[in-house]
């Protein structure tokens, strides 16, 4: 789960990391009021869950409250990479001397948390990594031992941070480590961490991602999810414990198991079709879950055919068949459906569906071919 900049920075502040004064606003007049309160120059920053806001014109500097209102009006009317801007963060403007990159994330290959820092902050770190990898410092942290002070000092030294700032940097590093562990973050990033002209270290921008699998112990963070930023069907799917991702094609796919779901999409493509979605009903899905999944697939108007590929293990094919029948009864779908049931209780499942006017298939390849043909209107 991604957090907005303002949410991330509020969390940083809780753990003692200095952030600029400021608040989030949903309207231009709110933005004006915040700017008046802060006094002086402010930055108006669009809050959307995509990168490249600055380049898209979603971050602007205002010299006073009136200009803040005017710019907030503009930014709140924008769309950035397809996402409408619903909120802006109004922060006091900082006089920047130096920009640093600093983050903690999971290094999957090393199976450890890694601190990443660079003296070349303020730009996308992927860009720095591609062009000047020597400017990036990485220090792994033992997950059982936690961050040691010397590791933070090593980072400060290797990005040539002046010694006067080491003490403050250590506090920020310790704070960010706590943020990372106590929120189960998969990314806690400060970019840039700036040295201001009046010699302070401040986290000017922040980004966090939280491990969805850990949200059970973070009810407060789970509430921060911005459902406006995701497709409605994805929100609906999460409610039923389904894993759904909308894609651009026209063949809806319902599969049990993530690997098999991806494979089913791949085969659809291999035989000349385009998958409309990724959908994994998970293991052991009951008929209610299957019915919900089917409704979600059919809510996409692009869908011209649906492919069901179920390899029963924990999941029982007869349960899936019952769910399909329930959903068909409610939704009365007009698109052709291809179904392939193999494994646990497949025979019972097929019997249940015998009268349902569905196209049946034996193999995975056969099912995909039939779905592609059906989507092109060639089904019998």
């Amino acid at each position, binding site marked *: 789960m991604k957090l907005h900049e303002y949410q991330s920075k509020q969390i940083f502040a809780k753990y003692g990391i200095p952030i600029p004064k400021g608040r989030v606003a949903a309207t231009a007049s709110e933005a004006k009021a915040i700017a008046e309160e802060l006094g002086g120059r402010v930055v108006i920053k669009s809050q959307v869950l995509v990168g490249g806001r600055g380049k898209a014109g979603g971050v602007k500097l205002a010299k006073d409250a009136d200009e803040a209102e005017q710019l907030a009006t503009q930014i709140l009317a924008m769309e950035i990479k397809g996402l409408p801007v619903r909120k802006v963060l109004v922060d006091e403007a900082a006089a920047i001397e130096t920009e640093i990159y600093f983050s903690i994330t*999971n290094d*999957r290959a090393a199976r450890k948390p890694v601190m990443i820092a660079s003296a070349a902050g303020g730009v996308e770190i992927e860009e720095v990594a591609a062009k000047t990898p020597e400017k990036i410092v990485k220090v792994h942290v033992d997950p059982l031992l936690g961050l040691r002070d010397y590791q933070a000092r090593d980072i400060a030294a290797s990005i040539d941070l002046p010694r006067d700032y080491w003490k403050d940097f250590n506090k920020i590093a310790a704070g960010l480590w706590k943020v990372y562990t106590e929120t189960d973050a998969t990314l806690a990033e400060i970019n840039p961490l700036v040295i201001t002209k009046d010699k302070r270290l401040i986290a000017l921008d922040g980004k966090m991602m939280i491990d969805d699998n850990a949200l059970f112990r973070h009810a407060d963070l789970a509430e921060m999810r911005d459902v406006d930023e995701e497709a409605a069907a994805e929100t609906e799917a999460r409610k039923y414990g389904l894993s759904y991702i909308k894609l651009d094609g026209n063949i809806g796919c319902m599969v049990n*198991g993530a*690997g*098999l779901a*991806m494979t089913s999409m*791949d085969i659809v*493509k291999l035989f000349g079709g385009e998958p409309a979605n990724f959908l994994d009903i998970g293991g052991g899905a009951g008929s209610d879950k299957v019915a919900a999944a089917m409704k979600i697939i059919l809510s996409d108007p692009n869908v011209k055919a649906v492919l069901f590929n179920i*390899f029963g293990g924990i999941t029982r094919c007869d349960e899936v068949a019952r769910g399909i029948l329930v959903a068909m009864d409610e939704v009365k779908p007009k698109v052709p459906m291809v179904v392939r049931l*193999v494994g646990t209780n497949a025979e019972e499942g097929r019997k249940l569906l015998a009268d349902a006017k569905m196209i049946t298939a034996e193999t995975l390849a056969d099912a995909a071919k039939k779905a592609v043909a059906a989507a092109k209107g060639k089904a019998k």
Partner: protein
Amino acid sequence: MSILINKNTRLLVQGITGNEGLFHTTQMVNYGTNVVAGMTPGKGGEWVLDKIPVFDSVKLAVEATGANATVIFVPARGAPDAMYEAADAGIPLIVCITEGVAVQDMMRVRDYLDQKKVRLIGPNCPGLLTPGESKVGIIPGDIAIPGNIGVVSRSGTLTYEVLYALKLVGMGASTCVGIGGDPINGTNFVDVLEMFEHDPQTEKVVLIGEIGGTDEDKAAEFISSKMTKPVVSFIAGQTAPPGKRMGHAGAIIEGGAGSAADKVKALQAAGVKVAKHPEEIPSLLK
């Protein structure tokens, strides 16, 4: 011969009295797996299927039954503790079926298990199957027959497809290892490839990978430098868009890295035949 498990494996089931634990214990026992004990805190003294004693702790179960492997069917929030407990009780092989374990928990678990030299399969995996001898986990027993093909996979049901496709043409498996779809897991591809390379029963290997991470690339390196047995592969997620997590916590293309195309290229460069779809695998093994 087989790897990791055989008919002599003495299996403990953690979470044996739960829905999933009970269902799959029954399946495992019916398959012939030597399930010697179960463990559910607070249910010590009960019996499952009239013959499997249940204990309050892993330590007690091991002392009483000599269990030398464990399979975990405990919900995600309790799974890390279950793994620590098994490791502390001296069990050398842990198979964790549980899906949805938090990644930072897994980093700590893996660190601890490595220090204790405990082998972990999973989490978020279907487990192990040595056809005709033993199954530890949830792979349906009737979809595979004994044979000489070692199968290793990051996926669950996709693995079933492959085993089934092999069975349909009369090809069997020595052992099937589902290593799981999480970003941080125990045993990885290279570990299993090494075991298959040294297993006299295994003559050929099928490796089923997916998008995300670098495990397949490391496997490719290992295959080209150390393996003498032929390897056939399939990589799921050719059509997956970057930045979207495809169900498995580990199946995500991050910052352009971990795409299916790159993995296929790396494997092909290592001399691996890569199937366009799973049902093509049997013909590539011939």
